[in-house]
Every structure is written in structure tokens, then in C-alpha cells.
């Protein structure tokens, strides 16, 4: 009877019916309060539902099965879901003691370390997690930002390139590659990234942003003919008139400017183009969704 109840509870959990799963598990637990598997399912389903006693159930599982990595992972998941960062970190550390290569625990510890200001530890954990995953993992995504903040653009770019390779339609990755390539002077890669952005960004009016990026590349190269060509193209699609100054600058550099007004300075134009890139990034800041990979094998 209990085995059937457990199977049914598991099946409901796997189908996403967490309410039914939890109800079945809790009913079965009345007769078997220390049944680890029932506690586990009740706790996991409880975490999905935001149940207050879910962490107690999973804590009991960890107490009864302290040598199982999933016991501590589940507990860490419960604490993290409730915002108890320190408790989550402790649970994931215990998981890591059992399985030093557990990607989920490494990823979680990377983020909890970052939250407490330990950037070095954070990067270390996330690098280990990233090594174990195929590219566009949560660890890798966060590493891009962390490397960038720690003043390691080359490392950030390497991570961004892996993500872009694994998820070629991911706008955030494409923007990271473009921006970071530009910042470290890898202009060919930056140009490729901006061209890729033109392909995948299907929002109206957004073509101008990628064009502004390509113009930045050409300015860095002193490629004035190409910059002018791109600026003209950007002007035709830029409803907001932001390209006017860029065009005037490019014309002047290419020797085609008029003498009516002094053209903007390179500094002004690079500022405008950087602002355009920042605006584009802001518009896509929430494209990535927050969902889980398979936590429970």
C-alpha cells in the first residue's frame, strides 16, 4: 500500500501535480512517519508549493540519510527557495562533501558565496560547476557577470562565447560577446556578434542598435569608409534620430563632411554609441527566464 502510494505520489510529482503528490505523501506518512522516500516527496512537493513545513520534512530526510547527496541538495533547495542563504550554503556544502563534483551544489555555493561578498570563492565554485556542464549553464551565465565585475573581461568573453555557442539564439549571450569582444579589442569577433544580433533580434526598431555596434567596431579600426556606410544605413532605419551625430562624425572622418558646423568629437560619438549599446542591453535584460534544470534525477 505504501509502495503504491509512493509510486503514485512520485508520478503526480513528475507530472507537475504537486498538490496531489504532497497530499498523497502526507496521507501515507500518517502510517509511516519516518518513511524517507515519502518524506522526500512530501518535502519536494512542499517546496514547489511554498509549504512552510517542507524544510522540516527535508531536514528529517537529511537526518535519516546523511550520506546521500540528494538529501542535502533537497534541503539546500528548500532553504534557498525560502531565502535562507546561510542555511542553503551549509546544506549544499554537505552535499559537496559527499559528491565534490555535484554541479547543482557547486552552482548554488557559487551564488551564495557571491551574496556574502566572497567573489573569489564564488568564481571558484562556479568554474568547477561550469566545467561539468555543457556550455549554457546557470554557472556559466553568472560567471560572465562576475568576471566582468572583477575586471576580467577576457575570462568573461570566454564564458560568453561558450554560452553563445550552446545557445546561438540567446540575445543576452550575443550582447555579452559583442560588448566584451569590443572591450578587449577582438574586433572581428565583435563584428560577427553584432551581425548575429541583427539576425536574432526580431523586435521592430532594434536593427539600429546592432548597426551602432558595428559602427563602434569600425571606429576602433579607423575604418571610416565602412563606418560611413553603416552610419548611412543606420540613419535610414533610425526613427529616433540618434544616428545624426554619428553620421556627421563619420562623414568628417571620411572627408565628406561639410564645413557648416564642427563635427562631434570621437569621444562624444563613442559615448553615444556606448549609450545605445547599454539601452539595447536594458531592453533585453529580462529575456532569460528563471526555470530549473532537472534537479531531481
Amino acid at each position, binding site marked *: 500500500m505504501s509502495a503504491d502510494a509512493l509510486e503514485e505520489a512520485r508520478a503526480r510529482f513528475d507530472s507537475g501535480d504537486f498538490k496531489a503528490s504532497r497530499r498523497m505523501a502526507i496521507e501515507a506518512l500518517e502510517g509511516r512517519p519516518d518513511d524517507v522516500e515519502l518524506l522526500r516527496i512530501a518535502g519536494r512537493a512542499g517546496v514547489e508549493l511554498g509549504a512552510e513545513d517542507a524544510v522540516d520534512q527535508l531536514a528529517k530526510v537529511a537526518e535519516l540519510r546523511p550520506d546521500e547527496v540528494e538529501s542535502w541538495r533537497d534541503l539546500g*533547495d528548500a532553504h534557498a527557495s525560502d*531565502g535562507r542563504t546561510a542555511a542553503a550554503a551549509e546544506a549544499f556544502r554537505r552535499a559537496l562533501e559527499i559528491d565534490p563534483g555535484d554541479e547543482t551544489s557547486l552552482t548554488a555555493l557559487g551564488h551564495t558565496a557571491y551574496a556574502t561578498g566572497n567573489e573569489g570563492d564564488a568564481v571558484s565554485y562556479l568554474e568547477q560547476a561550469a566545467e561539468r556542464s555543457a556550455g549554457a549553464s546557470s554557472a556559466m*551565465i553568472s560567471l560572465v557577470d562576475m568576471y566582468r565585475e572583477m575586471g576580467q573581461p577576457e575570462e568573461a568573453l570566454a564564458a560568453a562565447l561558450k554560452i553563445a555557442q550552446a545557445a546561438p539564439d540567446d540575445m543576452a549571450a550575443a550582447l555579452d560577446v559583442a560588448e566584451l569582444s569590443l572591450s578587449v579589442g577582438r574586433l572581428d569577433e565583435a563584428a560577427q556578434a553584432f551581425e548575429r544580433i541583427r539576425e536574432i533580434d*526580431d523586435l521592430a526598431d532594434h536593427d539600429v542598435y546592432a548597426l551602432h555596434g558595428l559602427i563602434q567596431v569600425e571606429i576602433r579600426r579607423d575604418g571610416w569608409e565602412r563606418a560611413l556606410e553603416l552610419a548611412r544605413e543606420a540613419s535610414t532605419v533610425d526613427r529616433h534620430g540618434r544616428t545624426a551625430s554619428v553620421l556627421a562624425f563619420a562623414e568628417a572622418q571620411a572627408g565628406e563632411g561639410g564645413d557648416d558646423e564642427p563635427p562631434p568629437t570621437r569621444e562624444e560619438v563613442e559615448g553615444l554609441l556606448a549609450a545605445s549599446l547599454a539601452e539595447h542591453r536594458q531592453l533585453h535584460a529580462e529575456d*532569460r527566464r*528563471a526555470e530549473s534544470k532537472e534537479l531531481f534525477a
Partner: protein
Amino acid sequence: MTAEWRRCPACDAFVYWKRLKRNLSVCPECNHHFRLHLQERLDQLLDEDSFEDLGGELESIDVLSFADSKPYPERVEQARAKTGSAAGARYGTATIDGHPVVVAGIDFEFIGGSMGSAAGEAITRAAELALETQTPLLVISASGGARMQEGCVSLMQMAKTSQAIGRLGEAGVLYISLLTDPTYGGVSASFATLGDVLISEPKAHIGFAGPSVIEQTIRQKLPEGFQTADFLLEHGMLDLLEPRENLRRTIRNLLDLHARAEAARTDGDRSGRLPEADGQAPVDDPAALERRDPWEIVQTARAIERPHTLDYAGMVFDDFLELHGDRLFEEDSAIVGGLARLGELPVVLIGHQKGSTTSEMVERNFGMPEPEGYRKAMRLMRYAAKFGMPVVTLVDTAGAYPGLGAEERGQSNAIAESIMMMSRLPIPLVTVVTGEGGSGGALALAASDRVLMLESAYYSVISPEGCATILFKDAAAAPRAAAALRITAPDLLRLRVMDAVVPEPEGGAQSDPPAAAANVKAALVDTLSELLRLDGDTLLERRYDRFRLFGAPGRQPVLPPVEESE
């Protein structure tokens, strides 16, 4: 593309995905409201498993056989693959806490939520279904504007959806519009801003033209917070700004109140929905009132500690939901108004709000409204008439604000329109002057079927100080002017300006606000129980006659000289 730990774009914190989801996709660190997919919105707002999707056959139509860098149908296919949505817009029926509702929405993930034939059709069909079934409509908007690839047919969706909403409005069916981040262009300039109630979330971006377009056009930096929902609320364009955790409850409360209003409208005896009231009954015999020094009454009426509209809202009514804005220019907090219940009877409550602390008084302009305050009041009165709810106004103002901007924006016309509007509303209107009844600024909320006043209130064509300066040529003659103007309860009863007087506790309303509120409640119950029995035409006729008598020879009561009255 998914991430277990999501970086908040506002505060840069990494948040665990389950914690974020549990918090309705609001950053628990800084309260940044992440954008939601339409399905997530529906999951958060609607009763579980209640949504019946009726939009299965919606599709984008390639009316222009359009192609830019790729053919339009290819873009649509890509969007379908990316979002899992067939058309980027959905509609259907659902319930919210058991209250039936027709729901429609646009998904920003689908080609920027742009409105083409599919989205227009979804909204229109939803409005038509709401009309057919007389069910409230909830529309969730998130859009960058019209879909260029469908050309003028996209533009026409603005007309198609707006006319459907118009028809729904004429039938008196509630339409709640939830504007989410972002809502722009042809969507904001059509159905999205036509709701009876406009709700949004903190920092949601809403506007017509994009900020970049505006900056480039005017060559000026835009103010901080421009086009956020907070900005719109301040500028009178939203009724409600609610954090995401409150949205479901607020919408539910609106539906509940309107269901009660609809039930009341069809009820043969609406007065049965009024509560029991324990307070003292109003007095309509001037001889039963104590004679007091008018100047002393003026001082009492002006006392900062006296309860104001929001105090009475909490003590007399239930479930007061303040609605903001005039939908024209600005939110004027010198007048507050919204929906409330008096027992089981939904009403619209409107009143002046002076403020109790220095900062509040400044913020509320000391209860002296500008045109926006009166226009908000009128908007709420039209709302009341649309849904058959009585209006209760609480008047307490030194007068309409005499300012430069007020004159520029039509203070005279605002007051005039408000008076005229009140005179023609086919619903019960009751006014209680709770403090100062300052001339036209007061009358703009007081052209009612029944006008009552608290015992220590006053009502005057001009302040005693103003009269003293002009007529007595001496500002110090204000007490004499107060007596001469006959601005207190006994005289106003005799003049028939007042229909009844609400007793105050010993020491005035400020000494025992709950007791004063109980008496106000008793007066409202007594008055409304009579008015609710009358149909709209009768109310209009009697209201017209009430004000017609003033100054009419043979009908206007005349008071003896002050000395004889004492």
C-alpha cells in the same frame, strides 16, 4: 534560455529561481517587478484551472504579403517556436475567487507584443463575449505598439478594439485594464487606456511615444521616472498602482463590489442592503439645535484635528478603494474618491481631504482643489452613474484653489461642469458638509438630492474674513460677518440650504471621531433609505426642484434680522 539563478537588472543580486517564482517574479531584495509571460500572469491572477482558452483559431494574417529582411509569415513562425504561443494573444473565460470574468491578454515575448490582426481579434472577441454574457472584462496589456508588418490593418485594430470597448461601456459592463511593462503606442492609445479602472505595477513603463523618440524630438533629457506607472499615477493617468502581490486581491475586490452593485441595481429594495446604524439620527428642526456663536463654529470647523474624508471612509464605510486621477492632467489629492460599501450597498465616496500633519496638508494643498480634483470627482461620478451606485460626498474645504495654474487649466469651468453634472445624474446623491463649506469649491461636490452638515460645520458663499474686508471694510469684523452671513446649521436649515444636521459629540467631532462617524453613518442610512426607493427620473425632478426654489419669490424662506433670531 533558462537560469537557476537570475540576476536582478535593478539591484544586480542573484536570486534563486524558486525564490523568485515564489515571490511572483518580484525581486525579494529590491522589489523590482520582472516582466511576466502572459501565461504567468494568468496563473497568478486567475483561479487555478479556471481559464478556458477560446482563442484557438486566432492567427496573424499576412494582409500585405509583407517582407523586410525576412517574410512576415517566417517571423510569425519563429515567434511561435520561441514562445509556444500560436498568436501572441489569448482570450477566454475564467474566475477570480469565484467571480466570473472574461480575460484577454497580449504576450510581449511574441514579436514585442505588437498588435496586429490576432491581438486585435483577441481583444475584440473578448469584449464582445463580455457584452453578450454581461461579464466583467479584464485585459492584460504588454506591447510595443502596432505591428508594422500588417500596415494599416494594424492601425485599424485600434478602432476595432476601441469600438468594442465603447459598446461594452454603454451596456454598463465593467472593464478592468491591467497595463504591464511595457505598454506603448497603438495599444496604449486604444483599448489599454479605456478601462473603467486602470491598474498597473510599480515602475511599469507605459506611454505613447517611446522615450528615445521624445528625447530626440525635444532635445531635452527626460525627467527621472518618466513614463513609469508611478509617473502616470502622479499625472492622473492611472486609478491604481499596486505591487504585484496585491493585484489579484485588488481585482477580486473590484469584481466583488461590482457584483454587489449589479445585484443591488436589480434588487427591488436596495435600502435593505443598508446597515444598521447606531448613531444619533439627523436633526431637521432648527429649533432643536443649540444656538452657538457663528465665529466659534467657524473656528471649530477649521480645526486641524477634525476627521477628514479618509477618516470617515475608514469609520463609516467598508472596503474603501481609492481611485486616482482625472485622466487628463494630474492627480489632485485635495479631493479623494473611490469605491466603498455602506453595509452591503456599494457606493462611490468622494470628498475633500485637508490633511492632518503639516506635510500632508501641503501635499494636499490644504484641501483646496485645482481643476484636476473636480475633474477626478466628475470622472468618479460618471463611474457611479454607469454602474448605478449612489454617490456620497463629504465636503470640507476653504474653497477651490486660487492659483495661476488653476486658472490656466479652467478652474471655473471645472466647478461649473461638476455642479451641472451632479444636477443630471440619475442616481442618489447625498452630501455631508463635515467642516468648511467654502463657496463654489464646496458646491461643486454638493449639488445633491440631500445636503446635510455636521453641527459644527459651516457653509458660506465667501469666508467671513473675505466678507469682512469687502463689505465691512475691516478684516477684524470677521466674527460680525460670520453672524451676518448666516452660515451655521440652524440658519441654513431655515433657508433650506441644508436638509438636516448631523449631531456631533460634546466637544466636536474631533473629540470623539468614532461617535461623530456613527452619527454620519446614521444620517447616510436614513437619507439613502429614502432616496433608494426613487427612480432616476424622480430623483432628477426632485433635485431640480430642490435647487430651483432658492431665490424664487414666494418659495425662498427669508430669515429675520440677526438680533431677532437670537
